[in-house]
């Protein structure tokens, strides 16, 4: 009985409007495929970066032994008597970054604690967008600041400071990174549940005690992630150091001296007229590979710490 009733409509002609629209179906699949290709462009970019850096570095390392690259204390690929030791560039990069962090970490952290635990809702609403605006200021402008404002200012305190030095650009990079660290560390502290703060206040703690003894430890991995991503930014920063730290590779950790960073060296070579395929041309890819490995390490550690911190709450 039942099956008869069910079968009856199937014998009727199906309305054309309700039929499976083959054209539309194919179109949907085509659209999905195109969208997928767009998403794959991100993967393609990464692969291209890796392939190009590795390919050019490979030809570079056919001329230069990896041992010399890692141990030679001079970097003079453009000279007659060429040396290919990356250490002077690495020391310049690390010194300027270290100065930047010495400025940015204390100020950025204090700023974040103030913004998250002390500032009124109104102040936070005003300051947060300004911090975001500061993150967007082009770095070449900070280069101007380092070269023509901060260095002359420092020369009044230290008369022997040369016009190109690592101290000035280091400080400016630090100021540049403060909003970045503040903003991210504040996000981490905001994520600490209110119940934890209430627990502390209920014990008679002051704001400062609550901020230092409870909120900061609870948000510590998020704060550390902010530091690490800040380091990665300092290491990869180009314009400030290219303009104000000098172009001379110099194996030193003395901030009062001039020294080229990895990024400054790449800029210096690119500005010149090196023939494609020459060893000088390849050397910037080898330097870029080192830079990439350094920032990648910091980024991965930073994201892992942040991920761990997110899992807690």
């Amino acid at each position: 009985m039942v099956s008869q009733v069910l079968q009856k409509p199937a014998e009727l002609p199906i309305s054309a409007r309700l039929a499976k629209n083959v054209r539309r179906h194919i179109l949907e699949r085509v659209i999905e495929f195109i969208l997928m290709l767009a998403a794959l462009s991100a993967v393609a970019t990464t692969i291209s970066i890796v392939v190009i850096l590795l390919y050019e570095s490979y030809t570079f390392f056919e001329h230069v032994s990896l041992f010399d690259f890692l141990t030679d204390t001079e970097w003079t690929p453009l000279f007659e008597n060429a040396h290919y030791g990356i250490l002077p560039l690495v020391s310049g990069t690390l010194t300027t970054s270290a100065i930047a962090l010495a400025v940015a970490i204390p100020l950025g952290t204090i700023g974040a604690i103030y913004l998250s635990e002390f500032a009124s809702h109104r102040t936070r609403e005003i300051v947060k967008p300004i911090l975001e605006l500061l993150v967007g200021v082009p770095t070449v402008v900070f280069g101007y600041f380092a070269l023509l404002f901060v260095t002359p200012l420092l020369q009044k305190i230290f008369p022997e400071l040369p016009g190109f030095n690592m101290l000035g650009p280091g400080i400016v990079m630090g100021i540049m990174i403060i909003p970045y660290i503040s903003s991210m560390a504040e996000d981490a502290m905001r994520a600490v549940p209110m119940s934890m703060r209430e627990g502390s206040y209920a014990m008679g703690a002051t704001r400062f005690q609550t901020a230092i003894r409870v909120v900061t430890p609870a948000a510590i991995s998020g704060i550390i992630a902010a530091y690490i991503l800040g380091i990665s930014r300092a290491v990869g920063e180009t314009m400030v150091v290219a303009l104000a730290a000098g172009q001379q590779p110099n194996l030193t950790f003395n901030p009062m001296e001039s020294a080229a960073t990895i990024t400054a060296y790449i800029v210096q070579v690119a500005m010149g007229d090196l023939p494609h395929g020459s060893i000088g041309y390849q050397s910037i890819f080898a330097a870029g590979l080192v830079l990439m490995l350094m920032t990648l390490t910091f980024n991965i550690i930073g994201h892992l710490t942040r991920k761990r911190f997110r899992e807690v709450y």
Partner: protein
Amino acid sequence: MTTQASVLENLAEVRAMIRKHKRNDFIFSIVGLLALMIGLLTLLTLFIDLVIDGYPRFNLDFLTNYPSRRAASAGLLSAWVGSLLVMLVTFFSAVPMGVAAGVYLEEYAPKNWFSDLIEINVTNLAGVPSIVYGLLALGLFVYGLNLGESILTAGLTLGLLILPIVIVTTRESIRGIPVSIREAAYAVGATKWQVVFHHVLHYSSGGILTGIIIGMARALGETAPIITIGALTFIAFLPPSPVSDVAPFINFEWLESGFTVLPIQMFNWLSRPDHAFHINAAATGALIIVVTLLMNGTAIWLRYRIRKNIKW
């Protein structure tokens, strides 16, 4: 056991201690405010310094003159036209690609290792130093694809650079749209693409726009990757016009043209020893700052308004 006397005695002690602790609170609230202000005041100082230094060049000639060996008559014409054209290429490469990728990851991609891979990729790309994009472009666009040191190369390079920004904001905006809206559209017989195009993209367009503006502002101020591809710094001509008065009215010769952009012009003037050129650099810096702050400010304001107005 708290007796009456001990309670009162304790109270005096407690009060003295609280006063001491409150002093720490007060000191920190001042230190914190100062720390925060250093960042803000520095920008203000920088901006005032730039404006004062560059003031002599704030006139129309500065915008209509080509660069010159004589600082006083040098101008920004080729630089701002170059910036505009490069940004045009950046816009048309990064926006369609980034939005499409964001839509795919949020609406289509199955949640598996494949989408995880793309996601990790995008996060990592956002952290790659901009100069590495310059090396990529040098190897891939300039020599690999033989595009030369052209506007097309520069635009595509910056397009790749801001791609992660566009993808991430697209995804975030789309994620904010509730499932119920999608179900409502499916319920009246829409296909997946119709749901995405008519509804999801439409309602998240404000959020996506903020990402595009922030990305374009970033592209405008980027210097390192463009220097790395070997952009010339002394350009005393304009690229061929994109619009012509004979059919077909549009031409693409400008894409292959050499060029300079605002931050490069500034960098170039800044690296000269002659102080007269530093004045030009300051004026250029002031212009770049004003434009990028306006763009980022618009984006932040837009995002604030969207958050305030839309309550699903």
